[in-house]
C-alpha cells in the first residue's frame, strides 16, 4: 500500500524557475496531484502602472520579465501607437526587429542552459551564459544597458544605432553559429537528455489549443502558428524565415524547436542588417511640450508579440489622461503554469518536474506580475 507524501518545489529550489512554489503530492516517485502557489514575486506592476504617467512607465515595464525584457517595451509601444495613430519611421522598425531577435537568441540560450542544468548536464549553462553575454555586450553598445534597455519607446527607438555596430552584431552571430554544432552534439544528441526528455510532458494538439498554449509548446504539435507570421508586426512580413515545427509534442521536441529557432533568428537579423535603411529618423516626436505630460487618446487595445516563450501581450486601456487607466499583462506561460501544472503535470516523476517546467517555458513573473 503506497502512501501519499506532500513535497514542496520552491520557492527556493535550484530546479525552480523563479520565485514560485509547486506543491506536489507524490506516491513513491510519481506525482499524483500538483498545484502552483504563486505570489512570492507579486509586485503589483499593473497597479503601479496606473499611478505613473505613460512615459514614466517605460522604466518600469521591462522589469516584469527578466530573461527577455524587450518584448514588454515592444507591446507597450505597439499599443500606444495603435491608440494614438503614430506612424513609426521605417528604420525604427528594423532596429526593433534586430533588438527583439537578439533578445530571443539570448532567451533561448538561457532556456537551453536551464534545461541542461535540470538534467544535471552543467556544461550547458557554463557554455551558454558566456555566449549570451556577448549579446548583452551588443545591447550595451546599442542601448547603454545590458538587461533592462528601455530602448524601444512609443514612436520608434530611443536613439540610432552606433556607428559600425553592424560589424559587431555579425561577428557575434557568426560566433554563435560556429557554436551550433557543439550545442547540437552536447544537447540534442546527448543520451541522457534524450532519455530524460523524450516522451516527457506530451501535449497533444487538441490539449495545446484547448489550454491556449502558444509558442514552441503549440508548434511542437505540428501547427506552424507564430504571431510573427500570422499577425505580423514591425517588418516581419518583409523578411524570410521558417517556423520550425515538430509532431511529437514532448519535451524533446519543444527543446529542439528552440535550437532551430535560434538559427532562424540569426537569419532574420542578417536580413535586417542588409535591408535596413541606412539613413532616416528613428523616432517621431509624439507630443508637443514635455514628454511626461503626453496623453493617449481614450480607447482600449490588445497588442501582442511572439516572445521566446509564446504569445506575450498587453491589454491597454486609456481614458485620455496622462496615466494609463488599466494595463493587463498576458504572460506567455500563464496557461501552462497554472492550468498545466494542475492538470498535466501529475503522472510525471519527481525528478522530472523541474525539467517539465523548463521545457514548458514556465516563468513565474508572468503569473505574479
Amino acid at each position, binding site marked *: 500500500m503506497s502512501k501519499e507524501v506532500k513535497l514542496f518545489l520552491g520557492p527556493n529550489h535550484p530546479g525552480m524557475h523563479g520565485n514560485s512554489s509547486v506543491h506536489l503530492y507524490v506516491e513513491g516517485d510519481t506525482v499524483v496531484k500538483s498545484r502552483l502557489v*504563486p*505570489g512570492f514575486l*507579486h509586485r*503589483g506592476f*499593473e*497597479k503601479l502602472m496606473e*499611478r505613473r504617467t505613460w512615459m514614466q512607465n517605460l522604466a518600469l515595464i521591462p522589469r516584469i520579465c527578466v530573461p527577455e525584457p524587450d518584448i514588454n517595451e515592444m507591446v507597450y509601444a505597439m499599443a500606444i501607437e*495603435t491608440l494614438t495613430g503614430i506612424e513609426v519611421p521605417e528604420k525604427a522598425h528594423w532596429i526593433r526587429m534586430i533588438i527583439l531577435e537578439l533578445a530571443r537568441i539570448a532567451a533561448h540560450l538561457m532556456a537551453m542552459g536551464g534545461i541542461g542544468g535540470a538534467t544535471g548536464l552543467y556544461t550547458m549553462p557554463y557554455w551558454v551564459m558566456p555566449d549570451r553575454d556577448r549579446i548583452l555586450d551588443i545591447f550595451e553598445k546599442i542601448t547603454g544597458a545590458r538587461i533592462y534597455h528601455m530602448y524601444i519607446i512609443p514612436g520608434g527607438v530611443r536613439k540610432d544605432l552606433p556607428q559600425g555596430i553592424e560589424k559587431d552584431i555579425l561577428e557575434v552571430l557568426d560566433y554563435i553559429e560556429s557554436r551550433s554544432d557543439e550545442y547540437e552534439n552536447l544537447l540534442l544528441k546527448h543520451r541522457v537528455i534524450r532519455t530524460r526528455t523524450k516522451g516527457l510532458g506530451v501535449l497533444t494538439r487538441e490539449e495545446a*489549443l*484547448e*489550454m*491556449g498554449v*502558444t509558442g514552441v509548446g503549440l508548434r511542437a504539435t505540428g*501547427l506552424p*502558428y507564430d*504571431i510573427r507570421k*500570422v*499577425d*505580423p508586426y514591425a517588418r516581419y512580413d518583409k523578411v524570410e524565415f521558417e517556423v520550425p515545427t515538430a509532431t511529437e509534442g514532448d519535451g524533446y521536441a519543444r527543446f529542439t524547436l528552440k535550437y532551430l529557432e535560434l538559427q532562424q533568428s540569426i537569419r532574420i537579423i542578417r536580413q535586417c542588417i542588409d535591408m535596413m535603411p541606412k539613413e532616416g529618423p528613428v523616432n517621431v516626436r509624439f507630443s508637443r511640450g514635455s514628454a511626461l505630460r503626453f496623453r493617449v487618446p481614450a*480607447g*482600449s*487595445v*490588445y497588442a*501582442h508579440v511572439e516572445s521566446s516563450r509564446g*504569445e506575450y*501581450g498587453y*491589454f491597454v*486601456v486609456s481614458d485620455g489622461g496622462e496615466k494609463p*487607466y*488599466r494595463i*493587463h499583462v*498576458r504572460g506567455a506561460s*500563464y*496557461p501552462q503554469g*497554472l*492550468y498545466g501544472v494542475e*492538470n498535466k503535470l501529475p503522472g510525471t516523476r519527481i525528478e522530472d518536474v523541474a525539467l517539465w517546467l523548463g521545457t514548458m517555458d514556465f516563468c513565474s513573473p508572468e*503569473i*505574479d506580475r
Partner: protein
Amino acid sequence: MSSTNEVIFNEVSSLFEKVSFEKISDRKYAVSIEKRQVVSFLETLKRKGFSHMSLITCIDWIEEKEFEIVYTLFNWNTGTTLMVKTRTSREKPVVPTIMEIWPTAKFYERDIHEFFGVKFEGNPDLKPLILESWEEIPPMRKDFDPEKYSKEHFPDRAYEVDFLVKGSENDE
C-alpha cells in the same frame, strides 16, 4: 476552410441581436455583448474560428459604476484579434463562467475575482491565488488607494544620510 472575418462577423451578427463589430485597426476588432448572452456568444465565436483565448481582463469604470470584462480572442487562421466586452454592475458584480469553453479561463477568472471582486457564477474555485491574508477591498479597484494602505500598514523608516566614510580624506 478558414472563413474571412466579414463572413464570420456576418454569420455571428445574424445569430445575435444588436451586435456590431467595431474595427480598431488592421486585424483588431471589438464587440460588445450583453452579460446573459456572453457564454453562447463566445461558444459560437470559438466554433467559427476564434479558437484561441488570449486573456480575460477586467476594467473598473468607477464613474459609470460598472465593471467591464473583456475576453480577448485570437483567430490563428486570419491573424485577427477580437475583444469581446461585457459589463456588470459594480454593486453586485456577477458574470457567468466560461470554463466550459476554455478550461484555462478558470485561472483568469480566479485572478479577476481576487483583484476586482467580480464573482464568476459556476467557477468552483475562486480562492485567493496570489495575495496572502488580504483584508482590504480588492486591490485593483480604482477606489483602493495603495499609498494610504502602505502608510497605514508599514512604518516610515528613518534614514540617516551618512554616505561619507569617517576619517577618510573627505573629512575636512
